[in-house]
Structure formats: C-alpha cells, structure tokens
C-alpha cells in the first residue's frame, strides 16, 4: 500500500516523457513551419512596416522601408488617450465579467453536482451565445436599447433614466457590450476548475474552524485560480483589441473609439500602414507585459 502511494507522488513529480526526439521533430515540423511563416514573419513585417516612411512623390498608401521611429511618437501623441481608454474599458469589462461569471460557474460546477441534468442544461445555455454570430448579438443589444426603443421609453417613463438619456454611443454601452460578449469565455474556464474542485477540501476547512466565507477566500478561491487566470486572459486580451463594440455602427460612438478602431481605420480606410503597424506593435507589447506580470504573480505558469 505504501508502495502504491509512493508511486503516485513519483508520477506527479516526474511525468517527463522518455522517448527520443526524432519523431518529435517530425510531428512538430509542420506546425513550427506554419507558425514561423504566418505568425513570426508577419510580426517582423509589422515591425518593419511601423518604421516605414511615405514614398517621395508617392501615392496615398505607398511607403518605403526606413527607420522612422518618429512614427511611434506620432501615434502616441495622436492616440495616447485612445490607448488608455482601450485598457480602461477592457479592465472594467474583465472585472465585471468575472463578478458576473464566478457565481454562475460556482453554481453549475459545485452546487448543481447533485443534478447532472441541470448542470448539462445550464452549461449548454452558457455556451449557446457561441452559436450565433457575435455581430448579430451586439446589434441586437443596440436595437434593444436604441433611443426610440420601447425599452428605453419604459425606463424613461419609470424615471429610472433621465428624459434625454442615451445608451448607444456611451462608454457604458461599449463596456456593457464587451462584458456581455465575454461572459462565456470567463465562465467556462472557471467552471472547469470548479467542477473538479474536491468538496472534501471545503469540508476539511469547515472542520478546522473556518466559517463559510473564510473557506471561500482561503480554499475555494485559491483552488479556482487557474480558471480565473485563463478566464481573465481570454477576456482581457480580445477585449482590449476589440473594435466591434466600440464601432459607431454597433454600440460605440466618436468618443468611445478604442485602439482597435484606430488600427482598423488606419490600415483599411486611410491606408496609413506605418501608423496602424506602430499601434499594433504597441498594443501587443503592452499586452505581453501585462500578461507576463499577471501570469508570474498568480503563479500559474503552465498555461500551455
């Protein structure tokens, strides 16, 4: 018996595979080649583009390779505020999604264990939004809360909102849209860790004089940390680069532009490739720094 128990821990400590590396290379080669060609090279292309200068006597959208680091200064001057707004919106939306999602995940993953049917139905309803285009879902909110919708009229009639309140075009609407869109991305990973949470730890904590709130903060929450980390990353990263919710055709307006909108319009509308590339590189750099710090601090380095 003791031997079996020891074998268990030994496995946990040293699960390192032991086969040779030649087959590994064959298996990895296509993927690595693909990532090198279509992920790393584009990043390099992006860096090079971000330093380009307009071609002399060139047309709109024609640039030549250069080392114009001033491009970065220019975009910081022009879009500094947009940058801050993007991260601010993304941060608030991530926190809101976490607060909304955790109880849902806890209910489905822990409290509903005794009723597998309820668990399955609730889980399907959480992922249901994935099955319908997120653009249409966002548009639906826009129309539900458009200025002359009966929803807004009702809210105004009940004096919950002032007589000339708007929803679309406000920062609130953009954050609302981001939060709504990312709730499933937040709920699923948290659910996954909570579903595996061994309730015997909670019993042991109660047995050791911890009241339910202490048990939650000392045991449940730390044990669900991996889910919280993946959930917040899966929300924060796409939210800070999103430009659908903030776009004027959806929930945003001129005063709610996020960095995604700036990249999109620079690249696809006014064809200022270097500015778009510089913005992209900066966005990516900031996100990588935030992710690195966050992953280090939360102690979950084996995300992949």
């Amino acid at each position, binding site marked *: 018996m003791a031997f079996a*128990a020891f074998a268990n*821990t030994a496995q946990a400590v040293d699960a390192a595979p032991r086969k040779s590396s030649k087959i590994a290379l064959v298996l990895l080669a296509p993927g690595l080649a693909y990532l090198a060609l279509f992920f790393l090279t584009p990043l390099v292309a992006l860096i090079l583009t971000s330093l380009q200068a307009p071609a002399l006597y060139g047309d709109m959208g024609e640039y030549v390779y250069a080392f114009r680091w001033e491009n970065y200064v220019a975009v910081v001057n022009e879009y500094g505020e947009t940058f801050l707004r993007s991260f601010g919106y993304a941060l608030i939306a991530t926190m809101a999604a976490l607060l909304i999602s955790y109880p849902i995940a806890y209910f489905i993953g822990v409290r509903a264990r005794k009723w597998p049917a309820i668990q399955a139905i609730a889980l399907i309803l959480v992922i249901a939004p994935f099955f319908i285009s997120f653009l249409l879902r966002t548009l639906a909110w826009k129309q539900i809360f458009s200025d002359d919708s009966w929803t807004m009229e009702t809210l105004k009639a009940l004096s919950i909102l002032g007589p000339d309140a708007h929803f679309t075009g406000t920062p609130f609407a953009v954050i609302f849209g981001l939060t709504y869109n990312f709730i499933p991305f937040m709920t699923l990973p948290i659910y996954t860790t909570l579903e595996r949470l061994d309730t*015997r730890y909670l*019993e*042991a*904590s*109660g*047995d*050791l*004089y911890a009241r339910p709130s202490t048990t939650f903060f000392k045991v449940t929450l730390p044990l669900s940390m991996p889910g919280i980390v993946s959930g917040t990353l899966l929300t924060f990263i796409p939210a800070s680069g999103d430009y659908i919710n903030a776009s004027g055709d959806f929930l945003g307006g001129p005063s709610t532009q996020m960095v995604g909108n700036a990249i999109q319009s620079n690249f696809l509308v006014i064809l200022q490739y270097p500015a778009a590339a510089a913005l992209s590189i900066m966005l990516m750099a900031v996100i990588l720094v935030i992710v690195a710090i966050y992953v280090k601090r939360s102690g979950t380095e084996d995300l992949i």
Partner: protein
Amino acid sequence: MATGTFAESGADLELVGITKRFPGFTAIENLDLFIPAGSFFALLGPSGCGKTTTLRLVAGLEEPTEGKILIGGKDVTNMKSYQRPVNTVFQSYALFPHMTVLENVAFGLHRRGIKDAVAKAHEALILVELDHVANRKPQQLSGGQQQRVALARAVVNRPALLLLDEPLGALDLKLRRQMQLELKAIQTEVGLTFLHVTHDQEEAMTMADTVAVMNKGRIEQMGAPQELYELPRTAFVASFLGQSNLFTGQVVASTSDTISLDIAGNHIVVPKARAARHTGLVTVGVRPEKLTLHTETQTHDAGQNVLTGGVVKDVSFSGVSTQYIVSFPDVGDIVVFAQNMVFGPVVHEGAIVSVSWNIERGFGIEDHPEQAGKFVPDDNTASIAVAQRKALSAELEGA
C-alpha cells in the same frame, strides 16, 4: 468554540437515536452511543457498514435524519461543522493542495486566533517526524507522509474530540505500529477523547479502551477489547473479531450452571453464564486457539468438550502458530491454532485426530440460528464477488 484557547480536556460524546438515510439507502439505523470523556474509543466494522457516515455526523458534515448529537453534554445537532469543538483526520487526508505542509497544519490555529500558531505547527510536525518537509506541498509527499500531516493538522488543535477515519491505513506495518503508540501517547498525555474508526481488528484491540463492532449501520456489541473477544454475543462479532468455530444444536440437558447441546451426536457443554440463550436451538462457539489437537483417542474428561474422528484437511504454517482445518463428519470443518512448540507441524494432512477444549472457554451467542445462518467472513474474493453480484442485481431490479 471559544477562540484563542485550547480545550482543557476531552469531552464526552453522546449519540441519541441517530438515523441517517441517503436517498434509497439507510446508512445508520437508530444508533445510541455514549463515549466518556478522555477515552480511546474504536469503531470497528467492515467496509461500507457506516463508520465514515457516523464520523461525518459527529463532525457536522452530514445532517442526521433523526436523533441528537451531544458533545460535552451540549446539543450540537444544529451546529455547523466549523462551530464544533471537533477535528477530523480524513480518510482521504484532504490536505489543501495549494498550501505548504506547514500552512496546512497551522490553518486551524489561525482560524481560532491562537498565538504562536507557526511554532505550534512546527511542534506538531516534529511529533509526526515531518518537520523537515514543512515547506513542501502535500503532493510532494508519499501517501504515508500525507497521512501523518493530516494527523498533525488535526491533533495540533487539541480538540475536545478527535475523529480519526482509518488514519493509519496507508502506512506500512512498522510505521503503523509506531504511529499507534504515538497516537496512544498523545491521547493519554492530553486526555482528549478519541473516536477512532478502523476495519483492522488488531489495531482496534491494541489501541482502544472500548471497542464497538458495527455492522450494517448498527452496533452489534460494545465493550473492552478482551471482553469482546472472549465473549462475543453475535455470530458477526465472533467471526469479525478474530476467528470462531460455531456449532448449532438443540439444548438436550441443562444443570444449574451449564447447558448441553447435541451436535450431530456429540455433547457440547457451555456454562450458562457464558451463553445468551439457554433453551431450544442454540449456537455456541469456541476460539481456534482454545482447542487442543490429539492424535490418540481421547477419553471423556469432565471439564472438557471432545470431538473425535476428524480428518485433517489442511495445514498451514504461519511462523508463530500453525493452522489446522479438521473435518468432522456431520459437524463440519473446525479451525485449530496450535503454537509451534516443536519443529514443524505435529500432524499432516489425512491424519485422524480429535480436538478438545475446556468447557469454560466456550460461549453461546444471541442470534437465532434460523435467522443468522452461518456467518461467512467476507475476506475472500469469492464471497465479495457474490455480495457484489447480489447488490448489483438488487440495484438493477430497483432501476
């Protein structure tokens, strides 16, 4: 419980009419139990008899369907588990995986606001000889080490009542003996009340002041280990706690202090004081080590019961003693333990022998033979498989 202080001494535990029903299954049936303060009480029973459920009820992790639980005379039935002056060493250890060994052990002390929590946790770890791994995570320990951490985590709180759910199951024999001694020492030193659950009868008998034998959600018999062993009152106790030879027969004669049974033509005498029932069909028994094996024909001695004409079916040598299985026509197989006084077994398979025992060593049990039947100890795979199949087909019919 009062924060910031340790329990001065153990508290007594009383269960009154406790019943626990799970959907479609009654795990505990009308259980009454009193454990005096400061005693080492062992709850012994086969797997699935409701031992863990009993502990969970006492710890407040499960609500009783009926009945009351009192600790130190105070009704705690409606108290939450974190309010009860009780700690548990869980069968599954339940060590928090995100905390170090030290943090695990100090957890309860911190919750109760006890001073010098870390120093006290170290002391507890020294007691279980694991202070050198204080900063490791539980996953980095072997099963036996984890079990000792679980023990330290509970003992460090000096609860009035400590519940131990098979706490030594994962240890090898030597470590188990050592931990048994240490547990016993801790218990005597601090005067705490220990409720120790085990399926190991030897462990129960060596450690406990009082042993309760549990079967199918009820307590079959309770008492000092020696009393339980020498005078089992049911077939279950007779066979679960050590081995027994049981015979069933009609009472054909009785004197003022003995009854006499007819077992396939043999007369077996049992003292009345040691028999639960004195008339009709009665089951009596005797422990295998109380039997003496004879190769010469035995004359009837007044103080002895004798069975003759047995054939030795099996001889197995186990170091200290040898176990013989002797088959008697119409009586059945009888197990005899004989000390190995000489080199090797005294008889071999096929030998014709007789057995005898002092009538003072026999006992008569309570069970009605028609109901009880002969108890089959479920320690062989065939009987476990049979039980499993029965349970499964019952379940299938239910579904």
